[in-house]
C-alpha cells in the first residue's frame, strides 16, 4: 500500500528527458546487490573484444604459452559462470531475480529504482506464508512511487483478510490474464495463483498468490488510456514475477506472456433505461435504491470478461467508499479461501448450498460441476436500515448460478444459527 504521493506522482510511463547532472554522485545507502541495475540495458557482450586483442597480441609478442593458458582459463571461467547463471555485466533482475530491467523500466517513469525484499523462503509462521518485495522510485532522496510485490498464501478463517483481498483483487476492474494463466489484472492490481503442483498442500488449502499493487485502487479511473497502458505493464510484470517465483522454487513450467486483455470496464449510469436487472442477470430486478435518485444517481460497472477465476459487478457513487458489490468466485481453490466464512456465522443461509452473513458482507457456497463456487455480496458503507448483503444474496445466487451453468440453486434464509 503506497499511501504517500499517490495523487501527485502517478507513474507516468512517458519518460521525460530530465537533465540530471552528475549521474549518481553517491551509491544507494544500502546497496543490496540487486538494487541497482547497470544503466546500459544491452550488456556489452565481452566476446568480440578479446578475439581482436588476442590476435594483435600473437602477432607482436612471443609469449604464446601464456595466451593458451589465459584463453583456457577464460573459457573455463566463462563456462562456470554461465553454468551458475551469473554472467558478469548482465543487469540483475529485481525482486527474487524475476523482474527484467526492461519491465522495471516500463513500471516506472524514471528516477532511481531501489528494491527492498524479504526472502522468498517461508517464515514458517502460523498465520500462513507471506513475503514481500518493494520496488521504489526515488528522486532527490525522496520516495516518489512504490509498487509492492507479494507472495502469500491467502488466509482462511480471516474475515478482514478476505474483505480486503477480494475488494482489491476481485473488483470489477479486474480482467482475466487469459491463456490458462490463473490470475487477473487491473490498472493498479494484478495477481496470479501459483499452481498446486508448486505449492503442494491439499485440495482444500487456499491458494498461494503472487500479486502486484501500485497506488490507490482506482488511480486511473479518469484516464482510460493510461489505465490500459499500465494494465498491460502490470500484466506482463505479474507473469514475470510468477515465473521467477516458480523458477526459484524449482517448480515445473512457466506461464506465457499475457495476450490481448478484455476491455476496461465502463462506468455506467445505474438508472439507464433497460438496465433494470441486478448485474444484468435474467429474472432479477434491481431495487430502486441501487439506482439512486436525481443528483444522487448511482453508477455501476461490471467485469468485462466473465470467463476468468472470478467476476463481479458493483453499484455506487464512489465505488471506493459506498459500493455494493456482487462477486462470483468460480475458481474452486479461490472459493475455498472464503468458504469458512460461509459456515461459521451467527446468521445463516441454507438451501442447496450454505452461507452466512458477517457484518457488511455475506457469503454463499454452492457446488457446481467445477466444484465449489462462492457468491459474495459486500457493502462498503452500511448506513440506514437496508442491508443489501442480506436482502439481495438469494436473488443474486440463484440468478448467477443459473448463468454460470450451475443449474438450479435454491437459497433459503436468513435464519439465526441454532
Amino acid at each position, binding site marked *: 500500500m503506497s499511501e504517500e504521493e499517490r495523487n501527485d506522482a502517478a507513474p507516468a510511463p512517458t519518460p521525460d528527458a530530465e537533465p540530471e547532472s552528475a549521474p549518481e554522485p553517491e551509491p544507494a545507502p544500502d546497496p543490496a546487490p540487486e538494487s541497482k541495475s547497470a544503466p546500459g540495458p544491452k550488456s556489452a557482450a565481452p566476446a568480440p573484444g578479446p578475439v581482436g586483442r588476442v590476435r594483435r597480441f600473437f602477432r607482436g609478442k612471443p609469449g604464446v604459452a601464456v595466451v*593458451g*593458458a589465459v584463453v583456457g582459463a577464460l573459457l573455463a571461467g566463462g563456462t562456470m559462470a554461465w553454468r551458475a547463471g551469473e554472467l558478469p555485466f548482465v543487469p540483475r533482475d529485481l525482486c527474487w531475480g524475476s523482474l527484467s530491467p526492461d519491465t522495471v523500466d516500463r513500471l516506472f517513469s524514471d528516477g532511481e529504482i531501489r528494491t527492498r525484499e524479504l526472502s522468498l523462503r517461508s517464515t514458517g509462521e502460523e498465520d500462513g506464508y507471506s513475503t514481500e518485495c518493494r520496488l521504489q522510485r526515488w528522486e532527490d532522496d525522496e520516495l516518489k512511487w512504490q509498487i509492492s510485490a507479494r507472495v502469500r498464501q491467502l488466509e482462511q478463517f480471516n474475515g478482514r483478510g478476505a474483505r480486503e483481498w477480494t475488494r482489491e483483487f476481485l473488483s470489477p476492474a479486474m480482467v482475466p490474464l487469459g491463456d490458462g494463466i490463473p490470475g487477473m489484472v487491473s490498472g493498479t492490481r494484478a495477481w496470479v495463483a501459483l499452481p498446486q503442483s508448486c505449492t503442494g498442500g491439499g485440495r482444500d488449502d487456499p491458494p498461494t498468490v503472487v500479486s502486484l499493487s501500485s497506488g490507490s485502487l482506482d488511480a486511473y479511473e479518469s484516464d482510460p488510456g493510461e489505465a490500459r497502458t499500465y494494465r498491460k505493464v502490470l500484466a506482463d510484470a505479474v507473469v514475470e514475477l510468477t515465473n521467477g517465483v516458480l523458477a526459484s522454487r524449482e517448480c515445473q*513450467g512457466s506461464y*506465457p506472456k499475457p495476450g490481448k486483455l478484455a476491455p476496461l470496464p465502463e462506468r455506467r449510469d445505474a438508472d439507464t433505461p433497460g438496465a433494470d436487472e441486478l448485474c444484468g442477470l435474467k429474472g432479477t430486478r434491481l431495487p430502486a435504491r441501487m439506482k439512486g435518485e436525481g443528483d444522487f444517481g448511482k453508477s455501476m460497472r461490471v467485469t468485462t470478461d466473465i470467463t476468468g477465476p472470478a467476476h463481479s459487478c458493483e453499484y455506487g457513487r464512489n465505488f471506493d467508499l459506498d459500493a455494493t458489490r456482487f462477486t462470483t468466485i468460480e475458481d474452486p481453490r479461490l472459493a475455498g479461501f472464503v468458504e469458512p466464512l460461509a459456515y461459521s456465522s451467527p446468521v445463516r443461509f441454507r438451501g442447496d448450498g450454505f452461507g452466512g452473513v458477517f457484518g457488511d458482507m455475506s457469503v454463499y457456497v454452492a457446488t457446481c460441476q467445477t466444484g465449489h463456487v462462492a457468491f459474495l455480496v459486500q457493502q462498503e458503507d452500511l448506513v440506514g436500515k437496508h442491508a443489501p448483503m442480506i436482502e439481495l444474496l438469494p436473488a443474486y445466487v440463484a440468478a448467477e448460478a443459473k448463468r454460470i451453468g450451475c443449474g438450479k440453486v435454491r437459497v433459503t434464509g436468513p435464519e439465526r444459527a441454532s
Partner: protein
Amino acid sequence: MTGSNESAATASGTPRRRRKGLAVLLGLAVLAGAGVGSWATDTWPFDKESYCWGAWHEDDSDDEPGALDEVPEGYERTGEQSAPPRKGERATCSVTLKEKADSADSADSTTGTGDEYGDSPAGDLHEDRITAEVAPVRRGKGARAAWLSDFLGAQSAPLPDGLPGLVGRGRAAFVLPEKCDAADGRPTVVTLEGSSDTAMSSAASMGSEADVADLLLSLANHAAEQAGCAPGEPFEVTSPLAEATADDSLAAQGSSLCRIPGFRFRLGKDDHYRAHVGAVRDDLQVCSVADRTDVRAPTPAGQFVMVSRPRLAALFTGLAEDSASGKGWRGRGEVGEERALLTADCGGRPTVFFMQLDGFLSAHAEPGPRQVFAATANSVADRLGCRAVASTS
C-alpha cells in the same frame, strides 16, 4: 567459444615454428575449454543406456524423469522394444526396473520371510515397469471403449498449452497429429502405463506428473519423427501442469454423480460404486465411476466425457454410426443403453459427449440410461453456455 580460438589460430601470421607451437597450445586450450564445458553440462561423451528406440536416455539431464534415474543398488534396468514406430502400425516398448536375484537372496536370508503386508512375497523379486505403446486406437468398439475408460479417466489431467494429451501418475496418453493417422482415419496414440508387482496398486506410479509428461512428450516427438509425420515444431509443455488427482469428495445438489445434474443412478449403500471427478474444463470434462467391490482392484464401471480439444475429440472417430441422432437432438451420434456418443456444435466447436455404463449402472440409471445421457449432456452444455444438445422428452 572454441570457434574463436580456431579462427585466431588460422589468422595468426607468425613464423612457422612459432605457429606450430601456437597451434599445439591452442589445441590444448580448446580441449581444456571443451572438457570443462562438457563437465559443466554433464554431457560426457560416454554412451548412456537408451530405451524405446532412443526416445529415453538414462540420466538424460539434470532433471531426468525418476523412472530413468540412477539404478538403485541391487536392481537392474532392462529395456525391450518392438520394431520402431511406423505409420498405421503398432509398436511397443518397455523399461523394467527389477531386483537382482542375488541381492534378493541375501535379503531373504536376513529377513527370513517375505514382507508381512504382502508387498513383496517371499521369493518374488520386486519389479516396476513402464510400458509404452505407439499405435492407432483400437478398431473394435468394445476395445476402444475400454481403452477410453483407462486413458481418459479421472486420474489424469489434460496437458497445458492445448496439447492433445492427458497425464496421470499411472497412465498417460498423447494423440499424434493428423498426418500420423492410420489409413482408415483412426488417430495414432502414444500411451504410457506403469505397473508394479506390489499387491496393493493395480497401476503403479511412473513418477510425478512432470516426469510422466517428459517421458510422454519425448516419446511422442520421437515416434512422430520415426513415422515421418512429425510437426514442424516438436511438442513441448511450457505452462505448469495440473495436478492429476481425482476428486471424489463432493456431492452435487440432488446426489448426482460427479456434480453433474442428471447423472443419476439408483444406488444403495451396499453398491460399491464411487464417482471420481477428473478435469472440468471448457474443452474437457471427465467423470469416472468405479466398482469398488474389490477395494484392492476397483474396476471401471461407468464414464462420462465431454471433449472439444480437437485431437482428443478424434479419439472417438468411428466409435458410433455417423447418423442423425433423432428428433429434438442436435448433432450426430448413437445413443444406446450402455454406450452413447453424440457430436454436436457447442460454441462453434465440434464437441463430443460420450457415456458408457456397465450392466448394473445402465439398469439403475434414473430414470433410464438414455434419459441420463440426455440430462447429463445438457447439463454440461449448459455449463459451457451452449444450447441443449439432447432431447429431454
